[in-house]
């Protein structure tokens, strides 16, 4: 079961030897090549020999990429036009393209829609430069949109329910697609006293993603797999994650955190998700019929994440804990993560795909903060109405 191109380097001994140490450069330079140097890998439509990126010094990369060429896949990504998962399709497409696969991204809606003015859509030109195709439309008409184009693999990174995914899955089956992959959600796991959520654990009966998973399983694709993500950080993210913390920290505002602040969550760099998806494509037999928690392999507490964000920003941190019920606000609107332990581990991916995680929050958040400042979001005027309501009810002064 040789993994083809894996952007993640093998787990290095001192990856987490201290919370602020720099990771060895190897995996970072590889990831930069894959995601920020698209001009190097230009694929012509006539499939002339590829030029390999010159930056990485490890020969393993080019050997693996050559292997990938032999198993070149034609991949269709059906991608949501907004939301926390939107960025997954973008990274996945980039990674596939740099491995030499053919990629078409079908984004829901219109190319001219306002939604396309937000990342990752603002970076779709990178996919095109790398030889990918980007199209828009209604996934229910996917067959009409792609016409006679043939695909080996389809990833649905859009639908949350059967109504939305069924037309795509049905079309894929009838069009002879070999591998069908679906981005579901770790949110469907039933919260239990024992942690983490592990593949195979009980899911909520009424979760709409579950009906999709079951339906796919029954379609007899040569290979099918389900991926259940949590929260992501990474350039090109459509939905705020760490930004919520940075917004408050750079403005010297207290960070209001519901409950004890000890709730666990899983914040993954999106490159971990795309590497997992890529491994599933390149090991379709091993991945067949499997559920994968599509997450990093570390939990962080709410308080811990706030601390790491403050450290990345080089600023002071003040955390205020509050009880949403007592204050009379909806925690869902007041805080970016579910107000409970919500932690899944990527055990299946490690065991079945030989996947390794590279998310390194202390380092990744530094990069995220640099970009946060680069786009001047730290200077953007902002309102904190809900925060103010919380602080008022707790009688906390905010010095401006």
């Amino acid at each position, binding site marked *: 079961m040789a993994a083809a191109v894996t952007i993640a380097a093998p787990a290095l001994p001192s990856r987490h030897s201290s919370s602020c140490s720099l990771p060895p450069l190897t995996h970072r330079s590889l990831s930069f090549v894959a995601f920020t140097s698209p001009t190097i890998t230009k694929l012509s439509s006539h499939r002339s020999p590829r030029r390999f990126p010159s930056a990485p010094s490890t020969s393993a990369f080019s050997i693996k990429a050559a292997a990938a060429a032999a198993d070149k896949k034609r991949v269709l990504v059906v991608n949501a036009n907004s939301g926390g998962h939107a960025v997954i399709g973008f990274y996945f497409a980039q990674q596939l393209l740099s491995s030499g696969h053919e990629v078409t991204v079908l984004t829901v809606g219109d190319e001219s829609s306002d939604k396309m003015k937000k990342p990752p859509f603002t970076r779709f030109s990178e996919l095109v430069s790398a030889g990918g195709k980007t199209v828009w439309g209604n996934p229910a008409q996917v067959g009409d949109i792609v016409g006679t184009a043939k695909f080996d693999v389809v990833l649905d990174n859009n639908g949350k329910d059967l109504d939305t995914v069924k037309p795509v899955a049905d079309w894929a089956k009838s069009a002879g697609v070999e591998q069908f992959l679906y981005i579901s959600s770790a949110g469907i796991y039933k919260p239990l006293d024992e942690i*983490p959520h592990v593949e195979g654990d009980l899911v909520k009966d009424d979760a709409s993603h579950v009906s999709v998973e079951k339906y796919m399983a029954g379609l007899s694709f040569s290979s099918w797999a389900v991926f259940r993500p949590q929260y992501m950080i990474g350039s090109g993210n459509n939905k705020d994650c760490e930004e919520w913390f940075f917004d408050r920290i750079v403005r010297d505002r207290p960070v209001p955190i519901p*409950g004890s602040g000890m709730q666990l969550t899983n914040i993954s760099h999106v490159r971990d998700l795309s590497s997992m998806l890529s491994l599933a494509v390149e090991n379709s037999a091993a991945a067949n019929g499997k559920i994968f928690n599509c997450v990093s392999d570390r939990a962080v507490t709410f308080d811990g994440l706030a601390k790491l964000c403050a450290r990345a920003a080089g600023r002071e941190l003040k955390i205020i804990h509050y009880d949403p019920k007592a204050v009379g606000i909806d925690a869902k609107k007041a805080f970016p993560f579910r107000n409970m332990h919500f932690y899944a581990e990527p055990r299946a991916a490690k065991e079945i795909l030989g996947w390794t995680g590279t998310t390194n929050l202390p380092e990744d958040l530094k990069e995220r903060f640099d970009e946060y400042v680069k786009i001047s979001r730290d200077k953007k005027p902002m309102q904190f109405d809900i925060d103010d309501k919380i602080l008022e009810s707790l009688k906390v002064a905010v010095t401006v």
Partner: protein
Amino acid sequence: MARLVAMQPRQASPWASSSSPLLPSSLSEFNGAALSISLQKRRRTWQPKGALQVTASSAKKILIMGGTRFIGVFLSRLLVKEGHQVTLFTRGKAPITQQLPGESDQDYEDFKSKILHLKGDRKDFEFVKTSLAAEGFDVIYDINGREAVEVEPILDALPKLEQFIYCSSAGVYLKSDLLPHFETDAVDPKSRHKGKLETESLLDSRGVNWTSIRPVYIYGPLNYNPVEEWFFHRLKAGRPIPVPNSGVQITQLGHVKDLARAFVTVLGNSKASKQVYNISGSKYVTFDGLARACAKAAGFPEPEIVHFNPKEFDFGKKKAFPFRDQHFFASIEKAQRELGWAPEFGLVEGLADSYNLDFGRGTFRKPADFTTDDMILGKSLVLQS
């Protein structure tokens, strides 16, 4: 009856006792046949076949430092059953052997006839050195060592030692906001367990073939640390369970029998040379969840949980709760991946094993002491009125 899925088919377990009903690990179940089949296949691949078979030529002369209280009781039995010659080094204060609840007379007599005893105080370094040198052991299991100095005479005595297997502790990890702890994580040179760390360093510096096992919280029958026993006392007395702060703190329990099997798995295993392994249960649990799991395992109704702020009390030297008041859990995937070991006991099932073979039979190590509970409950009653 709930389906017994997600569980490894049991190999002939030396502990199988007809009087311990297996409670299904009902907190983890499958949805959908396709998914359960694939997961069962996955589970089976974790365990190499015949992992515990030993031929006569590979029988070792083994010394266990300790071995009469908890881990060693189970470990020594496994080793003896495998045909090794096992000696226990203890001061002889506790009986060298005791029949385990559920253990047949035959099995006990067999074990008792084979186990050997070396009587001495391990703090008497001269005696340790001379007696061990005189005997010449192939393998040392150090189950009760706390300080590096205690290990030096052992290493001095046995220059041809094949393997030194050490029971360390996950308590050596530096507290972190990023969990679980992996073996590669930073350790805390100032922790309460720094003696364990210093021992690991000593072993490494002496060039001996060592393996270190880091358990988290150990539980199971004969536990002398009041972990599950603490909950059982309260459940039996029909008392509420006082839990500090939010009760969402996450901890991790590992069954002593799974730990013993891990200790056996590393014996003579070249992969384990100079390696550290976290050994514990497969899942973690909140404090509140653990209270509920103990009740479920022992057949008590769901307990009332009372949360308290430890800062509001002065408990003196008494502990108001058996776990450190923080998240504390470690990943066992290195052991699973490299050794093919996997825990057999789920949490509720393991607690049931402990209850059925120990507390449920009327045995325990520490009698119930509800002093701190009453302080907490007294105050909470005042606040409510």
